[in-house]
């Protein structure tokens, strides 16, 4: 049971407050980008390439310009005049806004049609005639480094191959020596599939440039409005859009999951067109464009190895990665971390030797590598370590739960330094796994499995005990395009004791309007219902790097607590003045200061705030507001223990997830209802790549499932009934002891499911299957083992 320090009426931390933002959403009064309608607004549609790799010979816009309502057709040649045809990616690579001569992936933007209505823009799009000269694309990342492969980025001076960068961590020599001498070494090659965030709202914007005021207001689906404002000023400052002339507004966002961090060409084209014509321009992509052209996630090919002793002690790991970035590195990682936080791949286990290396390559696929509900490549890392740990347990003949218990970092060993240098802040991995095992009576399940195996039935139990690394991050290491990854909160309390607080983050469904209010309620005793929360408007909110990588609570949530504590310090001074006692004579309980030993002599926070405006001590600054920019001293390390039970039909190979228990430890909990909701949602986004989702390309670079007809986002039928629970190990360095939770389930679920399915198939000698694991994949694997006739 979570203990609350505040009453339900105040609604501080630990209360399952119903969400403040829901009122508008359940009544159809949300305000998403596509709901923005401005006078004289034009609509933009985009012509896209049918080829993965081709020269553009000619773009004929004559017929398109004849379409009633079409105002303009913009090509790369038009943008080139303003030097806006290329833009930087967040990883300091470069990306075309519109091409001048070559297209690099199927569905790449080729031209933009601007018209007075949505339908006219689409008609115009159909009338643009583009002549291409197709070339043989590079699709397989393993072949991209062949000497015979064409050099895709010939735009880069001196580029002679398709290699982007090489990254390493750990100790190669020590690790190689260990693997040569260890008693047991296991190895698997695994692919973490290319997938898409597929938030139900696609991306879009309304760019509203006023020639009169030389000012741009950009309504936009962005998770990081301030960073976008700075990027716009950096890219378009030379044409007069300096930072004070740009206002970015992220209205309600229909799911982000990392897919709304990057700057897509459509945004830039809309700004350019609005700048040129002086009218608002709306661009809303459709679902197929979203799946086919917006940043993908994952797509890591990993060779994972583990070395250990015969009795199950893990001694070391080795990971070799090939990262397919498509035609440009458009990841959204902190600058110094090209593989994000992959180096968390050493996992939850106590050993000291590891080496990991990654090579990134270009191919003729859409750019990306975004952190899809994942703190920068943690999903890939966790899949690799949790799969190879199961493989190791199988090799040494140990139960995977026992083997994990044997190797966990012990509770008393935190803070713990990982072999790649991270300082894990806290954790209790044994307690989490034990709780998950108790929840579904693990030993009984193993007995049942043995009985079923004897009868030839396929039942599997899979475990994942992951450690996350979130809340980027400390400014000494973390920046995006040079901007340090702090975040901010500003609290203004009005004379009547009600407040508004503003943040540099941006909710996309996480419930910030409720949880931030709860943090402030906890610290100041002002009821959460009396605290309005505002995000997403760069003209009003303090600067921050936005919401992704489970960073809102670790950074902006901390900023809220500290800003509120600054106000509480001021409140103490005012209370002492009002009560005519010394500050040391006062005690605080949520909502009031009272005199020690005389609780009837008290001033409520509302009385104190009123005095700050009406009767403040002379010499003290009037008013009652505070701002804090929080630079975290360390990252936070949420963890979890997930167990999945599957039954597989021996004839059809259909997989049924019978039970899935998720025990999460995200430190102190602000709102249990919202935390649980985050876990539910992330689990469904975890089963998605484990069993259903993958963006598939043929050898010509055609996407084979670029619509919702064939990209299988789980429905309520595919999604199991999740069972959730928690343990609480507060973060010792975070002001409210919280760690962040949004991404744990997406990260932790896929290996639990994969491990369960493989566990069901171990009697046939199957030790690994790549996700998504489909019935057909199981059928083929069993066929190879002679179970089915070929």
């Amino acid at each position, binding site marked *: 049971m979570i203990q609350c320090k505040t009453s339900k009426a105040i609604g501080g931390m630990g209360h399952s407050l119903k969400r403040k933002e829901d009122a508008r959403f*359940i009544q159809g009064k949300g305000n998403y980008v596509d709901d923005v309608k401005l006078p004289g607004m034009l609509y933009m549609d985009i012509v896209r390439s049918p080829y993965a790799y081709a020269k553009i010979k000619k773009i004929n816009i004559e017929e398109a310009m004849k379409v009633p309502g079409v105002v303009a057709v913009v090509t790369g040649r038009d943008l080139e005049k303003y030097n806006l045809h290329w833009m930087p990616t967040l990883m300091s690579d470069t990306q075309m806004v519109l091409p001048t001569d070559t297209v690099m992936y199927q569905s790449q933007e080729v031209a933009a049609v601007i018209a007075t209505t949505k*339908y006219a823009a689409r008609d115009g799009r159909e009338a643009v005639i583009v002549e291409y000269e197709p070339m043989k694309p590079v699709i397989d990342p393993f072949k991209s480094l062949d000497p015979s492969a064409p050099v895709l980025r010939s735009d880069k001076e001196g580029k002679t191959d398709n290699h982007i960068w090489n990254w390493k961590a750990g100790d190669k020599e020590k690790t190689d020596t260990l693997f040569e001498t260890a008693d047991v070494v296991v190895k698997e090659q695994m692919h973490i599939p290319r997938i898409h965030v597929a938030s139900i*709202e696609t991306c879009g914007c309304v760019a509203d440039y006023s020639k009169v005021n030389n000012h741009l207001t950009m309504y936009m689906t962005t998770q990081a409005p301030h960073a976008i404002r700075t990027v716009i000023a950096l890219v378009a400052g030379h044409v007069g859009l300096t930072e004070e002339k740009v206002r970015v507004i992220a209205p309600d966002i*229909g799911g982000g999951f990392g897919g709304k961090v990057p700057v897509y060409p459509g945004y830039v084209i809309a700004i350019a067109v609005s700048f040129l014509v002086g009218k608002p321009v709306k661009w809303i992509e459709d679902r197929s464009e979203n799946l086919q052209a917006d940043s993908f996630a994952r797509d890591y090919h990993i060779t994972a190895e583990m070395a250990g002793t015969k009795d199950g002690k893990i001694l070391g790991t080795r990971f070799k990665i090939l990262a397919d970035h498509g035609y440009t590195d458009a990841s959204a990682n902190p600058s110094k971390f090209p593989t994000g936080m992959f180096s968390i791949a050493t996992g939850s286990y106590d050993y000291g030797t590891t080496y990991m290396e990654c090579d990134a390559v270009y191919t003729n696929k859409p750019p990306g590598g975004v952190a899809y509900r994942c703190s920068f490549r943690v999903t890939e890392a966790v899949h690799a370590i949790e799969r190879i740990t199961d493989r190791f347990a199988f090799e040494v003949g140990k139960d995977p739960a026992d083997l994990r218990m044997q190797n966990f970092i012990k509770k008393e060993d935190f803070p713990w330094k990982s072999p790649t240098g991270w300082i894990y802040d806290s954790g209790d991995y044994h307690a989490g796994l034990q709780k998950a095992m108790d929840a579904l009576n693990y030993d009984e399940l193993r007995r049942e499995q043995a009985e079923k195996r004897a009868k030839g039935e396929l039942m599997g139990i899979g475990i994942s005990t992951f450690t996350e690394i979130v809340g980027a991050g400390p400014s000494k290491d973390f920046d995006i395009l040079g901007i340090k990854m702090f975040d901010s909160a500003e609290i203004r309390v009005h004379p009547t004791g009600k407040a508004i607080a503003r943040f540099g983050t941006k909710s996309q469904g996480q419930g910030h309007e409720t949880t931030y209010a709860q943090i402030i309620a906890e610290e100041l005793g002002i009821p959460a219902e009396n605290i309005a929360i505002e995000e997403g408007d760069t003209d009003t909110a303090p600067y921050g790097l936005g919401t992704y990588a489970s960073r809102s609570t670790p950074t902006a949530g901390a900023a809220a607590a500290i800003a509120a504590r600054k106000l509480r310090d001021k409140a103490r001074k005012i209370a002492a003045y009002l009560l005519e006692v010394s500050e040391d004579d006062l005690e605080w309980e949520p909502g009031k200061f009272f005199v020690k030993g005389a609780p009837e002599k008290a001033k409520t926070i509302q009385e104190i705030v009123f005095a700050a405006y009406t009767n403040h001590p002379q010499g003290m600054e009037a008013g009652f507001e505070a701002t804090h920019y929080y630079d975290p001293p360390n990252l936070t390390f949420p963890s979890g223990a997930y167990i999945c039970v599957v039954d597989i039909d021996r004839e059809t190979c259909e997989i049924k997830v019978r039970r899935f228990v998720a025990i999460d430890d995200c430190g102190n909990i602000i709102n249990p209802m919202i935390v649980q909701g985050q876990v539910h949602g992330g689990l469904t986004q975890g089963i998605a790549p484990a069993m259903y989702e993958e963006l598939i390309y043929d050898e010509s670079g055609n996407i084979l499932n670029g619509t919702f007809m064939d990209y299988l986002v789980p429905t309520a039928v595919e999604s199991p009934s999740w069972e959730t629970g928690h343990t609480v190990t507060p973060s010792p360095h975070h002001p409210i002891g919280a760690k962040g939770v949004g991404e744990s389930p997406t990260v932790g679920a896929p290996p639990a499911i994969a491990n369960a399915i493989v566990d069901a198939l171990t009697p046939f000698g199957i030790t690994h299957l790549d996700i998504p694991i489909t019935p057909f994949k199981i059928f083929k694997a069993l066929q190879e083992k002679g179970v089915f006739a070929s």
Partner: protein
Amino acid sequence: MNKTINVTVNGAKHTLDVEPRLLLVHMIREVLSMTGTHIGCDTSSCGACTILLDGKSIKSCTVLAVQADGKSITTIEGLAPEGGPLHPLQEGFKENHGLHCGFCTPGMIMRCVELLEHNNNPTEEEIRWGISGNLCRCTGYNNIVKAVQWAGAKMRGEETPSTEPEFV
């Protein structure tokens, strides 16, 4: 060649001059400026645009505005009077945390209106199949199921189940 149609939307009668190809969802969003009905895909897969057409839940991206001629439409805005009281499903979604980003919510609720009209006491499995034409990317569906069960109880005049999270 435009066509004149007569439609009743949330009780209000409209005579509209529309292109024959105009999708019903665009009529609602663009012509009538009622933006509670959303668009999440281009293949009739996601259900974000679900409304009631003569009481039946349909995906309004798959129907032409001209096909609604002479018919009655209910959108999320028409489910309850502005300022309340809310429809039991609206209340159920809020009480049970059946929404995160809110984008699929109007379509999901409108689908469930018809679902509960057919059967006001559905099993979990009936609810899951019943909403399988509506995608939600945020909630994992657990709490949507709870929200529908809660609303069903309320509509049956029974005590509503606890809304405390089963987060042990």
